[in-house]
């Protein structure tokens, strides 16, 4: 007696591979990923990757014998038909031996309402249907991740599945055809740069790993997988520019009982999200090589994700707080996730999607920065200072002439861009002259100034090395004012001259991201300003701007 005619062996058996695949029907899979676009179609980015991920799940987790899984990337019409022929031949041989067969056909690529687009060629859906039916497999599951994929479901006798319906079929022995499509007959299917693949396939695989096991019985049925993939795809695509994407499930199955696709409860390794956890969870392979699953975990029921043993990273987002964990899944172990031991990271706002998503933790965004800097600049000779020399003034070289102070408030409104408000002195100078007043006495005339500025600058930075180093450049303008002080034997006087200035700078920020040292960093920058504020009665103007090198501290919030 065959066990439940689950497609776990045929499709995505994520449990002990030998236990599930050794008995029952022989499972074959033909996986097609086609990035090529036809006339008027832009090439896709991740169709081949999606197909490869499906293969990885089928093969790595032991659901399908590796030799029964064939991946075809960017096939021509002839290549695809040849693959169909080979598969049909293999299935025929199995039937000749009296073995039941289960087939999974997966396609990710371009499609129209009436055909699959294979670059400049196409495969009409009617032909595809005929070939699929011609396999003669016990169960054929078709997964289409393409635009208007639901059009294939217009098969004779096929019944559309209601949304979120479970146990669509009665009976324990299901046979026939099921078509799981990424979108309706009139909708487009979308890829995600963030996920590195299509929304539908990503969520389908996550669901099959265990995220879709809503009744927590350790098995994921076709209906559960569809329901999960439908809702997660709809949520993710609802706010995109393309618009909402509704996955469809059409079945022509005979027999009783739910069609079990996977048994994550029997997986070699499992990550357990506890019942009290309510968070967005992103699971990726070590070193962020690939995103394995992204799930929305609601409080109430535990969720187990079937994974191959190994090292993983997990990002857990609960409201504005994001934490990152690294963990190892051991063979045969169920590893619970404890977010409280994870380190807190920063959330990156994905402006394109309009919502905060959990990104790689090393790309941080300090929203608000308080900065203070100290530096030195060059002294400049201008017509204004030359006039002072004509009037017998000599420059007093003081530390204040060279040292500059500044304080800033920076606001980052996008990942790499922000605005900076800076107040500081950009120029100071002191001059004096001794005048003989007779009777062996002299008096000293003194003249000095400090030029201040308040500038609003735009800043662009490029975080590197996990946010540790950020080279940046900024430029802006604003008011400047020079406070001049005069003193002679008659007393002193102070005046303020107003003007404006331009400033530009380039620098490097060092902001470590180690535990306990997260919000304070250093920066060094070179700066050039232009501030023609001072002008004398003879029309000589002094540019208070100069070249300066500044070092300082930054504190981020």
């Amino acid at each position, binding site marked *: 007696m065959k066990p439940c005619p689950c497609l776990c062996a045929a499709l995505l058996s994520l449990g002990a591979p030998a236990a599930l695949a050794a008995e029952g029907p022989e499972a074959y899979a033909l996986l097609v990923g086609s990035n090529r676009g036809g006339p008027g179609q832009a090439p896709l980015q991740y169709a081949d990757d999606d197909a490869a991920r499906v293969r990885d799940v089928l093969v790595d987790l032991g659901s399908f014998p590796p030799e029964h899984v064939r991946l075809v990337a960017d096939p021509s019409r002839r290549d695809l038909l040849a693959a169909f022929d080979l598969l049909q031949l293999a299935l025929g041989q199995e039937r000749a031996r009296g073995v039941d067969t289960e087939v999974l056909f997966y396609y990710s690529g371009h499609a129209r309402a009436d055909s699959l687009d294979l670059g400049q060629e196409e495969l009409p859906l009617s032909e595809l249907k005929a070939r699929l039916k011609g396999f003669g497999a016990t169960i054929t599951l078709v997964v289409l991740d393409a635009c208007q994929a639901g059009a294939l479901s217009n098969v004779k006798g096929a019944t559309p599945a209601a949304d979120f319906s479970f146990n669509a079929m009665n009976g324990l022995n299901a046979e026939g055809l099921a078509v799981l499509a990424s979108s309706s007959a009139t909708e487009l299917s979308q890829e995600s740069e963030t996920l590195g693949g299509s929304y539908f396939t990503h969520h389908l695989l996550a669901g099959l790993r265990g995220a879709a096991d809503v009744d927590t019985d350790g098995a994921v049925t076709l209906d559960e997988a569809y329901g999960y993939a439908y809702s997660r795809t709809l949520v993710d695509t609802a706010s995109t520019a393309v618009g909402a994407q509704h996955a469809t499930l059409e079945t022509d199955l005979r027999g009783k009982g739910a069609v079990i696709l996977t048994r994550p409860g029997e997986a070699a390794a499992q990550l357990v999200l506890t019942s009290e956890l309510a968070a967005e969870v992103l699971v990726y392979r070590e070193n962020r090589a690939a995103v394995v699953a992204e799930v929305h975990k609601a409080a109430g029921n535990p969720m187990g994700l079937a994974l191959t043993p190994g090292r993983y990273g997990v990002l857990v987002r609960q409201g504005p707080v994001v934490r990152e964990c690294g963990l190892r899944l051991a063979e045969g172990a169920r590893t619970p996730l404890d977010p409280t031991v994870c380190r807190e990271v920063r959330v990156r706002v994905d402006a394109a999607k309009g919502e905060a998503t959990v990104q790689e933790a090393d790309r941080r965004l300090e929203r608000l920065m308080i900065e203070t800097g100290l530096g030195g600049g060059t002294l400049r000779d201008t017509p204004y200072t030359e006039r002072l020399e004509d*009037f017998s003034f000599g420059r007093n070289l003081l530390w204040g002439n060279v040292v500059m102070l500044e304080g800033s408030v920076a606001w980052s409104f996008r990942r790499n861009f922000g605005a900076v408000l800076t107040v500081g002195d950009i120029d100071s100078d002191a001059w004096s002259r001794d005048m*003989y007043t007779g009777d062996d006495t002299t008096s000293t005339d003194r003249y000095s100034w400090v030029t201040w500025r308040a500038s609003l600058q735009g800043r662009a930075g490029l975080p590197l090395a996990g946010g540790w180093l950020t080279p940046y450049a900024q430029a802006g303008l604003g008011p400047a004012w020079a406070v001049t002080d*005069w003193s002679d034997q008659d007393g002193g006087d102070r005046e303020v001259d107003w003007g404006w200035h331009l400033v530009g700078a380039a620098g490097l920020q060092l902001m470590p991201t180690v535990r306990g040292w997260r919000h304070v960093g250093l920066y060094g920058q070179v700066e050039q300003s232009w501030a023609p504020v001072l002008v004398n*009665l*003879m029309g000589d103007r002094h540019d208070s701007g100069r070249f300066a090198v500044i070092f300082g501290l930054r504190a981020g919030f």
Partner: protein
Amino acid sequence: MTRAHAFQLTLTVLGITVLSGYSSCGEDLLADPGFDLWCGEDLCSWEVEQGQVEKVPTWDERDEGASLVGPEVAISQSSTATWLDAQCIFFTLLADEDPGASMSLELDFLDDGSVEYDQEIPAEEWENIGFHITTPDWYEGLRFRIHKTGDERAVIAQVRAQVAPSEDCVGAPVVLDDRPDGAQCSASTQCASGVCATLDVLGQWEAESCGACRLDTDCDTGEACGQEYGTQELPHLACGEPSRHALGEACQHDGECSTGICYEGQCAECDGATTCGEGAICDRHPAVEADTDRGLEPYMCDPAAGLRAAGERCLDDADCLSGSCDDHLGSLRLCDSTGRPCDADEECTLWGFEGTCQRLGVYQGTCN
């Protein structure tokens, strides 16, 4: 080296020092060069000789200059500088004058109203003008004058006259004639008197100064030409009563000495052994006070050999048999630097060298 030679060497060194510039280079000779000192609406340190001056801003409201208002304006300032203070002057002017105005610098080296130096100083758009002036070899009472003509605007921000190193002045010195008696000279045309004579001072050194005569024959009948001391540091030759100088005083000719003999720059009793009695030797009489390396020792016959009888000349009580040298005319005190009569050391400064007023002995003394 004799005492006299040492003195000559010292004076030579002093002379070199003097000729190099007594005052510090860069020293200002004009007070308030920046026109900062105003007494109300008038300049405190400058005299407005002609026209009107107004306080106006220059490069800044707070740094004021002087605007010379009117078609004819002259401002001046007298400096205490003499030929000993500055042999080379660096003059600078920072001013702005419109094309219709003209300014010039005038220097009156005797401050006697006569201008010995007149230089136009064009200054447009706050041009900084500077040049060197080689002063006369002798002057005193220097007055600087800025003279403006023309109706157009002329504003001065700074006028500076600073002592400069002598080697910076390569031009010919300013010609200064009409020098008073006692002024240093090198030609008679420089003297108001028309006489530039060489003086023998204490037999130690020679000076050329303006005076009234060179010889007795240059004077009126009954007058003798001899060394006199006026307001100047240097002595000069002047006509006066014969025999007016006592034994030991500096002299030029015999006729001015009461002894009738002028020897080695001092009125003497003898001019060598030939004028003393048989057996007497003509030699220097030691001055009454010590430290007489300046040579204040007039020649007398055997000043230490024997005592003198009543009525004979004496400088000191020790010269007389009676032990008393009549001093009813007082003591003869002379500057060891010039041999001129004095009452205090301050009167004995010559070219910055501080001499000493020393008591030579009894004035016109005779033994009691």
